C-alpha cells in the first residue's frame, strides 16, 4: 500500500491501476521490452499519462463537438472513396450505389474520373454520383476534395481511404527505382495521413459524425513481404496509424468520429496481378484471390451495418479471414480446387 502511494506520488500522470496493468507513457522513442513488445504481450505503451496532459477542454474543437447535439446516422449514406476509378475502389463505389447511397469518387487522373462518373451515372442515375480529381499526396488536392464534398453532399458519413500504390512492380528493394519507392511511400503513407487528418477535421464538426475506413494490405499484420518491401512497410504503418488515431480520438473524447480498418484480402486488381511471375505467387493468387466485385459485395453490407447500428466501436472488417484462407488452401491441396483459376500454373 505504501509502495503504491509512493509511486503514484512519484508519477502523478501515470496510472498504476488496480488491475496492475503497468502503463508507461511513450511520447517518443521508447521500446521498453523488446521481446515482449514484439509479441504484443507485456508492457503496453499506451500513453495514459498524456490524457490529462493533453486533453484541453477549452480547445475550440471540443466545444464545437460538445455543443452540437448529435444526429443519428440514417441511410442513405454519403460515401467518399479515394482512388476509386478502378479496381476495388470502383467495385466498392458500385456496390454502395446499388445499396442506394450517394458516392463521391476521385483519382489522380481527370479523364479516368470523368469516364468512371459517366459509366456510373449511366447505370445508377445522375443525382447519386459525383467525381473530382484528387491526388492524395498533395494536401491542397485533399482540401479541395473536402470542400467539393461539402459543396455537393453537405456531409460525408463514410470515408474510405482506398488509394494505394505498389508502382505496379514486384522486385527486390535493391533493384527498385527512386521514383517507385517515393510513389509507394507517399501515396500509401503520406496520402493516407493527410486524408485521415482532413477527414477527421471535417467529420468532427458534422452532426452525424463519421466513419473512416483505412484499407490495409499485404504486410499489415507485420509479416515480411519480400519483393514488395516498401509496400508492406507502408501498409504496416497504415494499421499502426489507425490504432494511434483510435487512441488519440479516445483521448480527446471525440465520440462521433471512428476510424476503422478494412481488409479486402487478395483482390485480382492490377496491383496484385502485376506481381505474378513466380510459381508461389501464382499458387496463392489462384487459391486466395477473389475478383473485386465479390470482395465489394461482402464488404459493403458490413461497412453499412456499422453506421446503421449506430456503433461507435472501432472495427477491423476482414474479407479474407485466417480460417477462410486455410480452408481454401486445404481444399486446393486436397481436391485441387481453384487450380488455374486466374492464371495458368505449370
Amino acid at each position: 500500500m505504501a509502495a503504491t502511494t509512493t509511486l503514484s506520488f512519484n508519477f502523478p500522470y501515470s496510472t498504476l491501476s488496480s488491475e496492475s496493468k503497468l502503463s508507461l507513457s511513450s511520447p517518443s522513442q521508447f521500446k521498453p521490452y523488446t521481446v515482449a513488445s514484439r509479441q504484443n504481450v507485456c508492457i503496453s505503451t499506451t500513453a495514459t499519462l498524456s490524457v490529462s496532459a493533453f486533453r484541453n477542454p477549452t480547445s475550440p474543437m471540443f466545444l464545437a463537438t460538445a455543443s452540437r447535439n448529435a444526429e443519428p446516422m440514417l441511410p442513405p449514406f454519403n460515401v467518399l472513396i479515394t482512388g476509386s476509378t478502378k479496381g476495388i475502389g470502383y467495385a466498392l463505389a458500385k456496390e454502395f450505389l446499388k445499396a442506394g447511397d450517394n458516392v463521391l469518387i476521385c483519382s489522380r487522373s481527370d479523364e479516368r474520373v470523368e469516364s468512371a462518373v459517366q459509366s456510373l451515372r449511366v447505370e445508377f442515375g445522375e443525382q447519386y454520383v459525383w467525381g473530382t480529381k484528387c491526388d492524395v499526396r498533395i494536401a491542397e488536392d485533399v482540401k479541395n476534395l473536402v470542400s467539393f464534398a461539402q459543396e455537393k453532399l453537405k456531409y460525408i458519413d463514410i470515408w474510405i481511404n482506398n488509394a494505394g500504390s505498389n508502382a505496379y512492380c514486384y522486385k527486390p528493394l535493391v533493384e527498385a527505382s527512386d521514383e517507385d519507392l517515393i510513389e509507394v511511400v507517399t501515396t500509401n503513407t503520406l496520402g493516407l495521413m493527410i486524408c485521415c487528418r482532413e477527414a477527421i477535421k471535417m467529420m468532427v464538426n458534422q452532426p452525424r459524425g463519421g466513419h473512416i475506413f483505412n484499407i490495409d494490405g499485404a504486410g499489415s499484420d507485420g509479416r515480411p513481404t519480400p519483393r514488395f518491401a516498401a509496400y508492406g512497410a507502408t501498409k504496416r504503418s497504415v494499421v499502426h496509424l489507425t490504432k494511434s488515431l483510435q487512441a488519440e480520438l479516445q483521448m480527446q473524447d471525440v465520440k462521433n468520429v471512428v476510424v476503422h480498418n478494412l481488409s479486402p484480402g487478395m483482390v485480382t486488381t492490377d496491383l496484385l496481378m502485376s506481381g505474378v511471375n513466380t510459381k508461389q505467387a501464382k499458387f496463392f493468387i489462384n487459391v486466395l484471390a477473389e475478383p473485386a466485385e465479390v470482395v465489394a459485395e461482402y464488404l459493403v453490407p458490413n461497412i453499412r451495418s456499422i453506421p446503421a447500428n449506430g456503433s461507435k466501436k472501432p472495427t477491423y472488417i476482414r474479407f479474407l479471414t485466417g480460417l477462410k484462407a486455410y480452408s481454401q488452401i486445404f481444399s486446393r491441396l486436397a481436391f485441387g480446387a481453384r487450380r488455374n483459376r486466374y492464371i495458368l500454373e505449370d
Partner: protein
Amino acid sequence: MATVVKLHLFPESLNRHRTRLLGRGFGLCPSPGVLGFGHNCDGFSVRQCRAFRTEDDGDVKEKKSRNLKKNEVNSKGENGFWSSLKSILLRNFMVGSKSDDEYRQAVVKVEGLLSSIAIQIGRYIVTMMSTGVILSIGFQMSGGDSQMDALIWYSWLGGVIIGTMIGANMVLEEHCRAGPRNVVITGSTRGLGKALAREFLLSGDRVIVTSRSLESVQATVKELEENLKEGIANAVGSSLTKLSHAKVVGIACDVCEPHDVQRLADFAVKELGYVDIWINNAGTNKGFRPLLQFSDEDIKQIVSTNLVGSILCTREAMRVMRNQANAGHIFNMDGAGSGGSSTPLTAVYGSTKCGLRQLQGSLLKECKRSNVGVHTASPGMVLTDLLLSGSTVQNRQMFNIICELPETVARTLVPRMRVVKGTGKAINYLTPPRILLALVTAWLRRGRWFDDQGRALYAAEADRLRNWAEDRARFSFTDAMEMYTENTWLSVFSLSVVCAFIILSSTGNNMPGT
C-alpha cells in the same frame, strides 16, 4: 670486401637481440609457457635472417647507414625489441619492394598480434600460479585425506575449464573488436547520431557524418576532429595505435532526396573504399500533438525523412555492400511504435517506425543469401531535441526516470554494433535489466535531468564532453549488469557440469564404502 664484413655483422646483431629477449623473458616469469614465447620469436627472427640474405645485391652505402640506424635503435635499450624488430622489417621491405605502405601495415598487424599473444600467455601464467597457490593451500588444509584431495583436484580442473572458456571468450571478443570499421551515419550532426559518430570515432573507426545542411556537417566534422585529437593526446599504448586509423569526413545529404543518397554512397566508397556499418539514424518528429494539428509540411517531412529516407538509404547501402568483398551491416533505428502498440500524439512518427519494423522483416528475407546484414538498433529514450521539443512538464518528470544522455546510450550501443555478426540482430539500450533498474530506483531518479518546473538540470553538450575522458573510464553499473547476463549462462552451465561431475565421482567413490 666491405660488403662481406657487414653481412656477417647482421646476423650477429640479430642474435644479440634474441638472447637479450630470452633473458628478459626468463627473468620475468620462469615457467614453461615462456618457452613457447621464445620459440615464437625465434621463428620470427630466423625468417628475418633469410630476408637479409636475399638482398645481398643491395648497395653498400645504404646498408652502412642502415646499420648505423640500427645501432641507434639498439642503444635505446628498454623498449628496444619491438621497435627494432619493426624497424628491421620496415627497412628490409622498403628496399625490396615498392609498396612499402602495405608492409608497414603488415608490420603493425604482426606487432599487435604478437603483443596480444604475449599478454594472453602472461595472464595464463599468472592464473595458473595463483591456482597452484590455492591448490597447495587446499592440500595443506585437507591434511592428506584422499577424498578431499580428489575433490580439490576436481574443483581445480573445473576452475581451469571455466577460466579457459571465459578467457577464450575474452580473446575472441578482443579479436572481433580490433580493426577499424567504416561507418556511415545519417542525420549525425546532433543528438544521438553525433554521439554515435563520436563513439565510433574514438573506437578508432572511420566515420562519415551527414545531415541536411552543409554548415552543420562542417561544424560537426571540425568538432569531432577536435575530440579525436584530444582522444589521441590522452591515449596510451594500444589505444593510440587503434586511434591512428580513425578519421571523420562529412557530406551534406538530405535522405529523402534520391540523388543526395546516391551521392553519399559514392562519397563513402570514394573516401573509405567500402562500408562496414551503415546506420539510418536520420529521423524526425515534429512535437507531440494530435494529428489534426500537424501541418501538411510537418507530415510530409516526417514521412519522407523516416520512411522514404530509411528505405532509400537502405537500398543504396545494400547496393554498395553487395559489390564489396566483406560483409556490411545496415542498422535501422527503432522508435516508439516499432512494437506495434499505438502512439497517440505521435501518430505519424509511430506509424512510420512501425512500417520500418515490417520493412526489416521483408529485407531479412530478401537479403538471406547475401553479405548484407540488416539489423535494428533501439536507443530507448534519449534526451535529444526529437524527444524534448514539445514535451510538457509532466512528460519531463517521466523522462527523469527512463531517459538517458545520448553519450551514455552511444557508449552502450556502439561496441555491440561494431561486433555484430550475421543478420537480423536487434541491439537495444532499454533491456529488461535496465528497465527494472530504472523502475526500482525511480525514487532516486527524481530530478535527475529536469526539476519540478521542467527546467533542464543536465550540462550542455560541450560541458558534458569536457568531463568525458574520466566519464568514459567510469565503471557503469548497468553495463556490468549487461555483461553479467551475457556471461552468466556460460558460467552457470560449466559450473553445473563440474558440480555434477564432482558429485557423481564422489558418490561413485563412496558407493563401495557404504
